[in-house]
């Protein structure tokens, strides 16, 4: 009846704001950033990046209520900079880091796939009756059930 939609946990309706910044009224260079529809995944990662900056005096995050899917990050910086600038820098650095990791993963995937193919081809030869059917099936190839053999699912042809 009045149950919230299941996707309320992570879905922000279009047009609504993602973040609310509230400057601290009593402490200089401090602010809380309320991020809507996020959880520990982003809260912890942003907090960690902020703490790596020497200009950040304090950074912490909390999820105030388990049924409200928002994260609050509190940041206090030195006089050299502003909390907004440090959060912006943290996010920027995160993009660089994740982008770099993704590129690294893709790079290593080429190497790993090259090692996988001979192993899977060998295990298919051992199971002769499946070979012909394996060729006719373009997307998924049969898996052998032998213990220790590499599964043949998803050996694709794009490399």
């Amino acid at each position, binding site marked *: 009846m009045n149950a919230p939609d*299941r*996707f309320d*946990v*992570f*879905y922000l309706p279009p047009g609504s*704001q*993602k*973040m*609310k*910044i509230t400057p601290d009224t009593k402490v200089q260079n401090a602010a809380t*950033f309320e*991020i*809507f529809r996020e959880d*520990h*995944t*982003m809260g*912890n*990662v942003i*907090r*960690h990046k902020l703490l790596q900056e020497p200009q950040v005096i304090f950074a912490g995050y909390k999820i105030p209520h388990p049924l409200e899917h928002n994260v609050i990050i509190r940041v206090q910086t030195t006089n050299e*900079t*502003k909390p*907004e*600038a*440090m*959060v*912006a*820098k943290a*996010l*920027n*650095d*995160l*993009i*660089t*880091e*994740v*982008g*770099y*990791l*993704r590129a*690294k*993963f893709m790079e*290593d*995937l080429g*190497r*790993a796939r090259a090692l*996988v193919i001979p192993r*899977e081809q060998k295990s298919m030869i051992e199971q002769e009756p*499946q070979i012909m059917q*394996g060729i006719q099936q373009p*997307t*998924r190839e*049969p*898996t052998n*059930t032998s213990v220790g053999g*590499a*599964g*043949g*699912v*998803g050996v694709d042809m794009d490399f």
Partner: protein
Amino acid sequence: MDLFGPANKPEIRIQELTGERIRFILTNTDLSMANALRRIMISEVATIAIDMVQFDLNTSVLADEFIAHRLGLIPLDSTEADKIKYPRDCNCSGACKECSVELNLHVKCTEEDTTKDVTSKDLVSHDPRFTPITEGPKDAGILIAKLRKGQEIKVKCIAKKGVAKEHAKWSPCAAVAFEYDPFNKLRHTHYWIEEDEKKEWPQSKNAQDDFPPLDDEIFDFTAKPNRFYFEIETIGSMKPEDIVMNAFKKLLEKISSIQMGLHSNDVPINGREPTRDVF
């Protein structure tokens, strides 16, 4: 890339890659990054799963809800899940071809003295891209129900795209193993022992990829975990490497949406120049 020093660039090394699992080591990042990746792989990589079931006929001994639940858990091939819209983003009122896939199941038992198995192989998909997965021709399929003579099930299923934050049936991972510091050098855990820790606690598989401590090593209380061991096992709906790639993509999307949120509060995106006139 002046962000990382020469010695502490993040690194990924794939240890094992097969059709249903991947093992890799993530180094020179912090725990929060590794944990974010783990959390996203478990709960935010989009897949396709049956979400609505219309029963035209069910004379089996199982209740409609029971069968509907079992249908929801059947893994559908989700390698092309990004080509379909989320139902909430679609303009249609109910379910259209752009945001859903229809699958039909119609089985009747006519055999005299054996029960008939209704399996995932009996599901007929309207879209060849999104079909129940099978592991080769010998695969018997996933059992949904058993029918006695004369019993019949006829249902129409609507599969939709979703993420496991909404329901675990959308998770592409059967298991995500995550470990750091297999020798417990950081003392993040405490082993309960009777006499000897080394005798009583077997080493983890990842210990052979880590650096064992020296016998007289002094405890470094400033040390932080920086070597993370992952092992991802799929349920078959997606290739394991695709799960990792999609997780990275999703993580980037999440960061940039927060960046946009910050930007809409009049904060410059790169953050290099501190703005002093915001407040």
